[in-house]
């Protein structure tokens, strides 16, 4: 059974359709990358799954819990608050702009939620945070403040912050788009390591080579719909749709 399913998701902002019946499924331990032109609804889809946006219509289930489904009037009916917050515990999200808390040290950025949301003991949370920082090769930055770090370091802290909540699924919303090309590599390396540990991930990215080699499955979205879906080979080498081919050709040229 998939750990995450989103079925026939519709979402519009001020009457403009952004998602027009998108469906995706993610199996446990799978890495799904979502590619596609800007404005195709990739980020909005992630934000709907992370409950930062509400869907207009459609169904989302996470780890067997139903977040939202179509009600009698065919519009979205969300589950009760307890279910919604239980589901959000399963999901971590890494933002394009990191969104670290500027007034907290690196260590406290990572421990604040485990301590005050999960009720972990402070010492326990700090030990876990130091372990994560070690993994992110940032052990020496525990006491630094976000503004003292490079963009790549900030993004690694935000990945550690998400991992500290022990999510079942980690969503990445263009995690390298705010970074210099030089710093992009260090983030991609971290995500590759997580993939090797069979972390379930859904990654929206514009890094095509990365999207291809880290993914078990690739989804190509355009104009609010899934146009193509399959293994990296199927999508990148054997695209069926002209829309996919024309999108990918712009990358192979450069």
């Amino acid at each position, binding site marked *: 059974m998939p750990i995450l399913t989103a079925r026939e998701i519709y979402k519009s902002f001020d009457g403009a359709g952004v998602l027009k019946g998108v469906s995706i499924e993610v199996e446990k331990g799978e890495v799904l990358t979502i590619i596609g032109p800007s404005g195709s609804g990739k980020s909005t889809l992630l934000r709907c799954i992370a409950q930062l946006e509400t869907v207009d219509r459609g169904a989302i289930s996470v780890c067997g819990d139903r977040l939202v489904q179509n009600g009698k009037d065919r519009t979205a009916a969300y589950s009760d608050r307890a279910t919604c917050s239980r589901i*959000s515990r399963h999901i*971590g999200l890494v933002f394009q702009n990191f969104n670290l*808390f*500027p007034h907290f040290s690196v260590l406290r950025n990572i421990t604040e939620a485990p301590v*005050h949301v999960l009720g972990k003991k402070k010492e326990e949370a700090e030990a876990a945070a130091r372990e994560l920082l070690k993994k992110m090769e940032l052990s020496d930055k525990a006491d630094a403040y976000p503004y003292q770090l490079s963009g790549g370091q900030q993004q690694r802290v935000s990945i550690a912050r998400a991992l500290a*909540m022990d999510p079942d699924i980690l969503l990445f919303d263009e995690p390298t788009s705010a970074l210099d090309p030089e710093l992009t590599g260090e983030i991609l390396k971290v995500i590759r390591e997580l993939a090797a540990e069979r972390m379930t991930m859904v990654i929206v990215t514009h890094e095509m080579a990365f999207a291809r080699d880290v993914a078990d499955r690739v989804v190509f979205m355009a104009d609010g719909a899934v146009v193509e879906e399959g293994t990296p080979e199927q999508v990148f080498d054997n695209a069926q749709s002209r829309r996919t081919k024309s999108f990918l050709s712009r990358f192979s040229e450069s």
Partner: protein
Amino acid sequence: MNYSILLSQMLEASLMSLRLFFSTLLFSVPLGLLVAAGRRSRVKLVSWPVRIYILLMRGTPLMLQLLFIFYGLKPLTGIQLDRVFAAQVAFILNYAAYFAEIFRGGIDAVPRGQYEAAKVLGFTRRQTFFRIVLPQVCKMILPPMSNEFINLVKDTSLAQVIGVTELLRVTSDWVSSAVSMVPFAVAAVFYLAMNAVVTRCFAVAEKRLDYYR
């Protein structure tokens, strides 16, 4: 002119000014937070009365508000407030409106991404406000708050219009009875000294919050 009597009377009057200053802050800062929350409310039945309150407080002279609360309340409601208490009420209501607008600006200046990160991590709305938003607001609003604090030190002198014997009232009495400008100079030094302390406190606070950007 007996300088020791002058100084002792002016010091005593300064205590009244300080009393007005501190009592106003004690109540208008928390009230300002509540007003800011009301102003930001999506419920129109809450936000509109709050808007009107802010307009009234900022749109009419503080001196008029003092006069109204001391002299105007009686004919309308039958309530006659004591002079000092009336002054405190006027200052608190007036400054809460200004503080509310400063708080509102500060709260709105916290990037949306901070709320989103907090939400995804599972913080409740209350935790998000007190742990994530408010500390950042405090840092941002220090400069405008220091302006208001300094204004308040000087505005306490307005309480004389309803007969409160604060610093400037005592000073003017001395000037007219002794026919000397010296008390004015002394008063200026007193106000400057109080505001030097206020300024220093804000400088310390800014330095303490300088550890992040």
